[in-house]
């Protein structure tokens, strides 16, 4: 019998699946890139749902506010410790700095992100619209859920209802838009395939 071969000799614990996806990434299928296409159904009007707030697990402890612009890395960083994630970056427009905290997402499970946004002087950003989104650039899709983003105290937001439904390369995107400026940060994240039912 022929020895059949795997492409992914290097797979290892957490990064295993993501790396395998990367390994196949150059083998684009013949299909054209997926355009954004609306649902083709006769859209039955979606009834207004009143779904109450849920009890959420306690959030990771926030350290005392730090902020100086110099503290922020030039390139986005993703730090992991004890099952927590800390994402930090200078916005690509250079107007705001972002700091996102969450538990390491488990595939297919809802998770919450708490974020802080600072202006270039290191002060908590004031009024504005904040959001966190996640997309899979290689697959041309985003999340299946629609998260909510609520400002708790000035410059701090709590985003609930994110879900990474597939293993592989995700981009986590934070946006902030105030009356003066808008800015964005993108973090690369390899979601592992280890599921917990």
């Amino acid at each position, binding site marked *: 019998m022929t020895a059949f071969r795997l492409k992914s000799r290097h797979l290892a614990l957490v990064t295993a699946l993501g790396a395998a996806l990367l390994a196949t990434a150059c083998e684009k299928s013949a*299909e054209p890139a997926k355009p954004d296409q609306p649902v083709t159904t006769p859209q039955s009007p979606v009834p207004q749902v009143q779904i109450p707030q*849920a009890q959420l697990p306690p959030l990771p402890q926030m350290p005392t506010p730090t902020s100086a612009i110099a503290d922020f890395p030039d390139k986005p960083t993703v730090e992991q410790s004890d099952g927590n994630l800390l994402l930090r970056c200078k916005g690509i427009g250079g107007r705001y700095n972002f700091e996102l905290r969450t538990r390491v997402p488990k595939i297919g499970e809802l998770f919450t992100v708490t974020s802080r946004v600072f202006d270039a002087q290191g002060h908590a950003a004031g009024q504005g619209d904040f959001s966190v989104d996640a997309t899979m650039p290689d*697959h041309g899709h985003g999340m299946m859920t629609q998260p909510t983003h609520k400002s708790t105290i000035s410059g701090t937001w709590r985003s609930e209802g994110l879900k990474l439904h597939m293993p592989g390369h995700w981009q986590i995107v934070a946006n902030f838009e105030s009356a003066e400026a808008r800015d964005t940060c993108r973090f690369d994240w390899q979601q592992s395939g280890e599921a917990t039912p």
Partner: protein
Amino acid sequence: MTAPFACLIACLTLNLQPQRKALRASSAWWGQTLTVIAIVAVLAGCHKRGIDLQGPLQPGEIALLSSLSPLPPLLPDPSNAFADDERAARLGLQLFFDKRLSGNGQVACANCHEPHKYLTDGHALAAGMGQTERNSPTLLGAQWLPFLFFDGRKDSQWSQALGPLENPLEHGTDRTAVFRVILGHYRPAYESIFGAIPAVLLTNLLPEHARPVHLSSKDPLQVAWDGLAVSQQAGINRVFANVGKALAAYERKLRPQPAPLDHFVAALKAGDINGGGHLPPAALRGARLFVGQAQCISCHNGPLLTDKTFHNVGLPPTPGVDPADPGRGRGASTVLGDEFRCGLPYSDTTTCEELRFLNPKFADFAGAYKTPTLRNVAMTAPYMHSGQFKTLEQVLQFYKTLPGQASVGHRELVLRLVDPDIPTADLVAFLQALTGPLPDESWLKPEP
């Protein structure tokens, strides 16, 4: 750079990533560089290289295989206060086999979910009082699904059970008739679990048949329903919901049992690199392909071998089935409008995270269907939401050729052609190693 060398670098750098703790700003560059090296190396070197499937299992493979087992403990179902009530499960068992719960006295849940066929019926398309457009899925493992049906139009097992009862193509009955069956044949058992049947329902004046129909207010069933007092409607709805809760309590007993894969992984985790020999050689090669080159694990992951979500794999159209069926594209809005969904009065919880963040407009829901569990899949032919394929070989032939185009939406990009050189027999042997015994016999037939 030679390929194996590239592979090695990729391996090392990628493995470094998760252990990077609290990287400082100054070392961020280094982290970035590592990532870039890793990606380049993967693309350059590992592309057509790989593991000799006869050689020893690699750590990465062991990790992935271990993620498929053991079977998880049952999760609580807060929407059903009777989910783990033993008496409710016993009542549900009787109801599951009771053909009186149908318009023609011939249809029970067990018709389409036959216990000895692993809770399926062996037909491409299920038929009750009429012919449906879907294949009967197994119920073994459905306890863990946040959304039920191929299009996820129900969000709990108890609410799901109410669907087939009033579907004219399945049981073809109605909630008022269901109430009469409970009153006539199950009253003591019902009342001991759910409390007394409300007095407003104990009248000879109730119509034989009545239910909300929505589609047309002229429907005789709707007219009869409109003739009921609000308190009677609420009382009948409550009994109907409780019937669903008893059925769901029963279905929670129908869990997949350990299969050769589970024994294999248990031995692996205990340090036996051969997994106790629980997978025959072909199944082991298939397992490695499943988590590796064939990338089945992108969607069929976790111990149930499903990501419990929805994908468009672009199946060929089925004769007799609406080719414009949007699948999840409709199911996602239907569940939000369901009178028995989480958070409404008949549900026992108001914590409904999955519904709260559900995005019914997610574009890729068009033409998407739920990834089925692959537990016991060798016992549940035919396959796919409309029974498109008769055998597992045909399913794999499909994944190897991806013929045609999706009739609704488009086939997901993540679904790539499986290398035609991969032996189908190996993957099939792996799928066969997912068969466990049936649950305890006492749950597979009604009490006399």
